[in-house]
């Protein structure tokens, strides 16, 4: 849209730049600011991140021109010089080491159009197998478990508003009161009936929603969620609370799961999890009473990263799904299982080809028919498409090694802060011959790059996002980006041309979406009936939507599951426990998570003054009894150390954490980079790393010879 036309439009309806709730916003005013719009998911609410999102357009250190690394650091260059040199270096790497010498790392914040085009760019322009994305850190375990049990992975296979009428909601490892506050409105119904059950080792803001009779907070030992779920299943199956007719008609594998939980009676579960057997029984009975087959108004089982980011995360989600199936919930009009997607386009971002083994529409890159379909849309021979690559952690740990990639493109991700064992990731990035980072601001990863390419952000671009409930939403351009900032679609088109890539490379988001729709046609995430024009009518459209007359699918599984047999599959699982468990020299559990005022690696939110005022720096939450043991009497600096690294931040003494556990938010870098400590051991099924539990020790900084407190405080305050 030309500049003068934009100027005449007073306001633009779009959605928030942050999380997967995708609250509806109206952008307008001078300077540009965001206000909430009424919408089913956010119901006119915005959190502080959304309210202040206009500030992102005015960050003082916004990237406004391409930068190239020289002996003097990063210096401005021209787009032509940058793209010419990048293309030439890619050609050289490929000629010397083969196409897998260059890898791509994407992000769950990219629009559907960009996610799609990035996968296509990797396969057709770079010809590399090696593409994966930061969604591997968020949604991979839930996706793997949903696929193997339900046949498809759509975070919530029902509209969020369905929760309003439920009698019970079991929320496992999700702190949505901090991560997506407006969504809490949908818990009001179940809370008014005492039916919210929150499973979290920490008394989070969400756990506090259970206070005053609104529900039950279960506070298990970190890393024992799976055992807890097996105990709930044991009670449901053992006490005759299951929906027998549903299991007979719609579910396979029940007998194996029944046997697999026979050895997890509540008292045994108690000794592993620390959750009282009686409480476990009560929760199982409450969930059953809320289920439709026992006359309840509905029950939902929802998982978040807290239970998924483990070496047995996929199995944990499988157990959650088995529980929901035992209660007859998935596909029932008043119940279900769902995973609460985290990143803005965490849903769409995982559907359209950024994953190492997938093509658009959840197609498999190894399936001949899937390859043929996508190759036909792309106008190439299927033989040209590479095969499966490797998941994110494996990809990052191979960078710059003997047999690993020598070059990397990073889009919409800040891996130097967000990846597990981040210290090692930083070393791997440094070992690369070519690191190209596209970003809006000079993130910690961008500062390590050979080329930094400035790209558009949400209010400056057109596209679509798929929200946590599988509804496809329009992101709209309200204002022009700075003069030298470019859209990634343009960058990939320019590079594709320089690399003599086959296929067409549109820079128009609407046209790219139409191509995505064709590529996804017949796939599990079928967008074939959608277009920007149709979405602009405001129609509520959830995928699959296979043709232009199809009304979309707000609720999945009403008649059949997306498996070949049409029946759901219960999967028996076995707990393995944390990979890095507590021991004498690391006696405490470390859990990480988000603060309300910040988002992901903090690259955006740490640049918004109001958010820094609300939560300026990192901290280490510890229990008063642990503080007493460590001799802490206030907000002193403490050092937290795991087998992989250490960090320093002020202590925050609170009863919200268990006495055996410390909590650290993961939005901060420098000496307070908690992902320097987290474990990069991965789930064997999903490739998801075990962010959510590892063993640490905590010391007063005064007691050791770490970096000077003054320096850390300075960083914390800056």
């Amino acid at each position, binding site marked *: 849209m030309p500049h003068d036309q934009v100027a005449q439009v007073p306001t633009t309806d779009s959605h928030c730049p942050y999380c997967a709730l995708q609250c509806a916003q109206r952008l307008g005013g001078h300077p540009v600011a965001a206000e909430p719009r009424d919408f089913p998911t956010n119901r006119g609410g915005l959190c502080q991140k959304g309210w202040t999102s206009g500030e992102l357009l005015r960050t003082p250190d916004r990237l406004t021109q391409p930068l190239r690394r020289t002996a003097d650091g990063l210096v401005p260059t021209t787009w032509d010089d940058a793209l010419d040199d990048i293309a030439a270096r890619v050609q050289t790497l490929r000629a010397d080491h083969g196409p897998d010498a260059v890898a791509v790392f994407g992000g769950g914040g990219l629009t559907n159009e960009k996610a799609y085009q990035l996968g296509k760019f990797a396969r057709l322009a770079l010809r590399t197998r090696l593409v994966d994305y930061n969604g591997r850190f968020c949604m991979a375990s839930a996706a793997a478990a949903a696929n193997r049990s339900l046949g498809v992975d759509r975070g919530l296979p029902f509209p969020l508003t369905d929760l309003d009428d439920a009698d019970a909601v079991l929320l496992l490892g999700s702190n949505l009161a901090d991560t997506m506050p407006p969504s809490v409105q949908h818990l009001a119904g179940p809370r008014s009936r005492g039916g919210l059950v929150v499973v979290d080792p920490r008394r989070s803001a969400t756990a506090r929603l259970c206070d005053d009779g609104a529900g039950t907070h279960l506070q298990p030992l970190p890393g024992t969620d799976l055992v807890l779920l097996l105990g709930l299943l044991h009670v449901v199956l053992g006490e005759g609370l299951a929906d027998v007719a549903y299991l007979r008609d719609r579910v396979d594998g029940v007998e194996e799961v029944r046997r697999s939980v026979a050895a997890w*009676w509540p008292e045994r579960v108690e000794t592993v999890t620390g959750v009282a*057997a*009686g409480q476990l029984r009560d929760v199982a009975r409450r969930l059953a009473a809320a289920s439709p087959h026992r006359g309840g108004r509905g029950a939902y089982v929802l998982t978040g990263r807290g239970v998924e980011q483990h070496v047995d995360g996929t199995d944990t989600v499988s157990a959650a799904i088995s529980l929901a199936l035992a209660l007859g919930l998935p596909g029932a009009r008043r119940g279900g299982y769902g995973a609460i997607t985290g990143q803005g386009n965490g849903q769409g971002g995982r559907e359209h080809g950024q994953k190492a083994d997938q093509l658009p529409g959840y197609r498999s890159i190894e399936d001949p028919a899937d390859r043929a379909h996508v190759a036909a849309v792309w106008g190439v021979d299927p033989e040209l498409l590479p095969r499966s690559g490797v998941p994110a952690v494996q990809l990052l740990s191979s960078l710059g090694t003997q047999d690993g990639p020598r070059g990397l493109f990073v889009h919409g991700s800040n891996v130097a802060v967000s990846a597990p064992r981040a210290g090692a990731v930083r070393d791997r990035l440094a070992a690369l011959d070519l690191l190209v980072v596209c970003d809006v601001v000079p993130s910690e990863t961008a500062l390590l790059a050979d080329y930094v390419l400035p790209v558009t952000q949400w209010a400056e671009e057109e596209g679509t996002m798929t929200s946590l409930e599988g509804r496809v939403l329009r992101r709209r351009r309200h204002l022009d980006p700075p003069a030298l900032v470019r859209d990634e679609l343009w960058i990939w088109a320019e590079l594709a041309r320089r690399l003599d890539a086959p296929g067409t490379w549109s820079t128009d988001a609407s046209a790219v979406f139409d191509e995505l729709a064709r590529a996804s046609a017949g796939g599990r995430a079928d967008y074939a009936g959608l277009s920007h024009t149709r979405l602009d009518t405001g129609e509520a459209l959830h995928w699959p939507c296979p043709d232009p007359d199809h009304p979309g699918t707000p609720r999945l599984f009403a008649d059949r599951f997306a498996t070949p047999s049409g029946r759901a599959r219960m999967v028996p699982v076995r707990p393995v426990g944390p990979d890095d468990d507590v021991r004498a020299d690391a006696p405490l559990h470390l859990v990480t998570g988000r603060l*309300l005022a910040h988002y992901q690696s903090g690259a955006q939110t740490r640049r918004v003054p109001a958010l820094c005022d609300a939560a300026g720096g990192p901290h280490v939450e510890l229990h008063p009894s642990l503080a007493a043991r460590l001799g802490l009497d206030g907000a002193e600096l403490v050092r937290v150390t795991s087998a992989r690294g250490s960090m320093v931040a002020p202590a925050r003494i609170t009863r919200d954490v268990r006495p055996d556990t410390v909590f650290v938010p993961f939005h901060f870098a420098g000496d307070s980079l908690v992902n320097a400590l987290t474990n990069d051991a991965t789930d064997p099924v999903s490739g998801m790393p075990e962010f959510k539990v590892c063993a640490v020790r905590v010391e007063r900084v005064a007691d050791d010879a770490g970096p000077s407190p003054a320096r850390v405080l300075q960083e914390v305050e800056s």
Partner: protein
Amino acid sequence: MRIVVVGAGMVGHRFVEETLRLDPAADVVLLGEESYEPYNRVLLSELVAGRTDLAALTLPEASGARVRRGVRAVELDVAARRVLLDDGSCEPWDHLVLAVGARARVLPLAGLDAGGGRLVGGAHVLRTVDDARGVVAGALNARRACVVGAGAIGVEVACGLRRRGLDVTVLASRDGVLDRDLDPRVSAVATRTLRDLDVAVVPQAGVRAVDVAHGHVDAVVLGDGTRVPTDLLVLATGSVPRTELAVEAGLTVRHGIVVDADLRTSDPTVSAIGDCAETPDGVSGLVAPGWAQADALAARLVRDRPVPTLPVQGATLRLKAVGLDVVTAGTRASTAHEDDRVLALDDAGARRYVEVVVRQGTLVGMTCVGSPELAARLSVQLDRPGVVPPDPLQLLVGAPEDQPGSPTTMPSSTTVCRCNGVTKADVVAAWDGGCCTVDEVVTTTRATTGCGGCRTLVCGLVDWLQEVDPAVPATSQEALAVRERGVAAR
């Protein structure tokens, strides 16, 4: 290497499962006497209580192993390394694992033996699924039940039968229930709890005989001659390791089949685990130590890993009884070392007793009666270094929860709206800036515009402001200070 496992109970199964997990190609034969699929014996008392159904007890099949059910081992030919079975066949071994378990101990009481090793009608032990079925069937037609034995099984069965509505009497051999696992003072609290549930407990019962009428139990006769009439009799007087095969094979046997710290019997090609094994620390009657032995033996045989120290004494006892919560694990007051710190909260009037034992900063023992949630919290701290507070008293009492403030008393820095980081001071500032309704405060501060959860609180603040200070022309902080002083002075 062919491994033959005799005994397809929970420990035998666990061993097979773990062996095949470590080496999916392992050559394992599992021999089971019962014709049933494997089941969870620990839950038999739950079956009696009617808290679980039989199908929920069935354990996973040992996939990957050759399983022979309904065959009884009749002889171990150690010299030839083979097991002879009652169907005339035999199974050769490279390594033999005995997991034959224990049998219920039956006291030699007059009137109890109906001949042929059978118990008189109406009398049952509780060791197998068939036993549990017998008890449940007997309970249907019974009004009164007697349980001989006041250990964990006896108490669980007593509570289970009470839950089914029977009049239940527990006949204890000593003063109270669970007296092997609990110190006398604690046992007394548990016994009183049981009586509160209308379960009669007879101490020092000295059961002497069983009166029989028409081939069925009619009463139990106690040491002092008292006759306790009953329709159903459950014998829960402990178990005896099954050692016959081992004895006949010439293996060393004392109370159980004697094994060394590596779980080897006196023959190096034979190991024993579970309830039949007598380790250097004794014989276990609980499943957890048996499972630990199974895992350790599998790791030794498959991976050649050393067997860790496997304590039997002090294993966690977590009672599964409706109405009586008892957990005890590790050291207790009577077994504590001189330098241990033993802290106890004795609240017998409320049927509650909590005790912790701390050794060099680590929780090494816990006993909780009537305090299930504290028991749950403590049980995951047991033997875990680095987490006990300097004053272990905090383990028992904790500290009072933070109380949410009222609009009047909450500090001005208190966050009112978390979603938008709005404090009480911000609301007061908006008020002083001219807002005089909730909606105006909302528009100015954005409070309530996230999740909306703070709406009540904001309304309360506005009500309070309207009440205490309808219009104060001062700076917000001063106004706030004035108001708070004023309120405090009231």
